[in-house]
């Protein structure tokens, strides 16, 4: 039982990170049918930004964090403005290739412009172990889970309750209808892209002490989050979260109870199963056939 809870903590703390990155996939897919293969790099770049601001330039934590989010937002804005807007008419594959190019550009850009080395980022919370009847965990795990959960809940509420959120939902339902309702679809889409990259920036802050700051972490995170989004359901924010947690837990439990050698393969097998039984994802809503 102690082991079980231990694994649960490990799995959830990873899964929730995958989940928050996966939400970005969902947001972009819903509002503009964009599959962003550079999503992982949208986490990696803020990591380096944070190191640059906080550790190299020695700016205090909070101002540095705000600046980093601003930087992420600009990245998201440029991404929409310079790339996606022009690429969308070309269809999904064109976007896939172009974002792959973007992913390489950002990755090698950081490597050349800065460093191929992995950089240290200090933990946000204490990592001293706390023992509780056979279970050992650190405040870092718990706080990560709590903070990210809060962010996701706030995001969810914003989308469900605020006027802006409603507008986003309307755009996701259908562009023409949204336009008829008097919503400025362009602005909403830009907003979603900025939101996505800010979210990724926030994820970067929590991921940096755990993964460390390395230029090639984006591929790893991107693929994991993409799988999470599909498993959970591509058209639901909830889906991304459920998917992330499922991936995190599946990895951990499969590694603990079956074999570690096929750790990543298990996630893929899980993906098969989910797609076979419920192609729209675990909590996704069936899309209308058209």
């Amino acid at each position, binding site marked *: 039982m102690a*082991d079980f809870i*231990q*694994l649960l*903590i*490990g*799995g959830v*703390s*990873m899964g929730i990170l995958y989940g928050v990155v996966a939400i970005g996939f969902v947001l972009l897919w819903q509002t503009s049918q964009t599959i962003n293969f550079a999503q992982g790099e949208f986490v990696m770049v803020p990591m380096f930004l944070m190191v640059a601001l906080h550790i190299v330039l020695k700016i205090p934590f909070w101002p540095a964090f705000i600046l980093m989010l601003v930087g992420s937002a600009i990245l998201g804005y440029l991404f929409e403005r310079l790339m996606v807007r022009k690429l969308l008419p070309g269809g999904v594959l064109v976007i896939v290739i172009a974002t792959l190019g973007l992913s390489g550009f950002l990755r*090698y850009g950081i*490597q050349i412009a800065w*460093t*191929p*080395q*992995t950089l*240290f980022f200090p933990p946000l919370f204490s*990592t001293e*172990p706390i*023992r509780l009847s056979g279970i*050992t*965990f*650190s405040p*870092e*795990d718990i706080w990560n889970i709590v903070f990210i959960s809060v962010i996701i809940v706030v995001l969810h509420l914003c989308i469900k309750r605020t006027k802006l959120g409603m507008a986003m939902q309307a755009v996701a339902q259908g562009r023409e209808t949204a336009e008829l309702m008097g919503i400025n679809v362009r602005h909403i889409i830009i907003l979603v892209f900025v939101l996505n990259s800010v979210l990724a920036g926030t994820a970067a802050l929590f991921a940096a002490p*755990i*993964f*460390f700051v*390395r*230029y*090639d*972490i984006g591929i*790893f995170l991107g693929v994991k989050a993409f799988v999470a989004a599909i498993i959970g359901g591509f058209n639901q924010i909830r889906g991304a979260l459920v998917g992330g947690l499922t991936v*995190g837990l599946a*990895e*951990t*439990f*499969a*590694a*603990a109870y079956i074999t*570690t*050698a096929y*750790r*990543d393969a298990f996630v893929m097998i899980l993906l098969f199963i989910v797609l076979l039984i419920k192609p729209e994802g675990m909590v996704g809503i069936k899309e209308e056939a058209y």
Partner: protein
Amino acid sequence: MLRKTLVSISILSLLIFFSSAPAIAAEAVKIGVVIEMTGAAASLGDYWTKGVKFATKEINDAGGILGRPVEYKIFDTQSKPPISVSAVKKALAWGPFALSGPIYSSSTLANMFLSQEAKTPQNVGSENWRISTKGSKYIWRCSTQQGFEVPKLLNFIMSEKKPKAMAMLHVNNDYGIGAMETTKKVLKEKWNTELVAVMATEQKQADYSAELTTVRRKNVDALFIYFLEEEAAIVYRQIRKMGLKLVVFGPNSSISEDSLRLGKAAAEGVYGMSGFEYNAPEPNCARISKWFKKQYKEWPDNEFMKGYNSIYLVKTGIEQTGGFDKVKYSQKMHDIFITPKMQKNICGGNLYYDDVGDLHLWDYLVQVKWDGTHAKPGIVAALPPLKGPDSNKKTIWYEK
């Protein structure tokens, strides 16, 4: 107009494409550095090339090799074996005297037959034992191969720490699996025991709670980790976060500067072994590490020393044969005992190269110390090589 443009474009592209053809033979001793500049091992490749750069500068400042300057050119393998083949081909087309790199064993295994065919010495940073079984007379290692490193390390742990239950975590690639095979063999043959758990992990894996829970469940008291630098550091952190008390030990990557810089306090107490340590009682390692620290504001990873040595090996070989004959070089550089007297700048003290190009040298057993701001390797002992003239020497203890 159009035709003119077309013609000029095609001529231009032809020029670009063929400009990689062999240049007019210069006086220089050319060394093709085939290395991981991008991809998963880019940071290691970065250290390696810095070592190459420094060694080249040092040799040229001192008048070159037999009066000829050293010139190197970098060829990126992207950390991928097929690309490494094209990189070596490209390097060989440049007409080098020798090659330096790559580090990844899978890349070396893919391209080593090329240097063998071209009869061009290749000094690699790979550690997988299979490389030595391929029968190439043109491969030299710049680090101890797993087949010798693992038994040495296990010797120490088994005889000094006397663990009751040992487990192994290894990275799921040629590097980790090669070591796992050797470990199983050595434990069975020499110590008549087995690992209680063997777990393969992924590169870039960030959560090890599954593995460590198993370790805890099986009451493991000695954990052998065979990882690349970043993953090693992540595991140290998690071992600490789970409050596990056990002996953690690993190969040179687990105590190399990159692991310690990232692992910080969590790395404290980890045992590891390396032939090249910046604070080892070996003057050349210490000397070039100081230079590195001054240059780049941090201590070097041991790949820096290996890259450095890869150039000095070429110098040694040429000087020992007295000319630029690669076949003679190959003959001379096997079963050779390189001492500081023979090559005063080479790192690692007495180096012995056996008849398959495996390196045997004194390895330093270190335990990581934490001084509140930095994790440092604390030298515990110097372990003699398993082969060569020094193999009958006794272990030197620095602290016990």
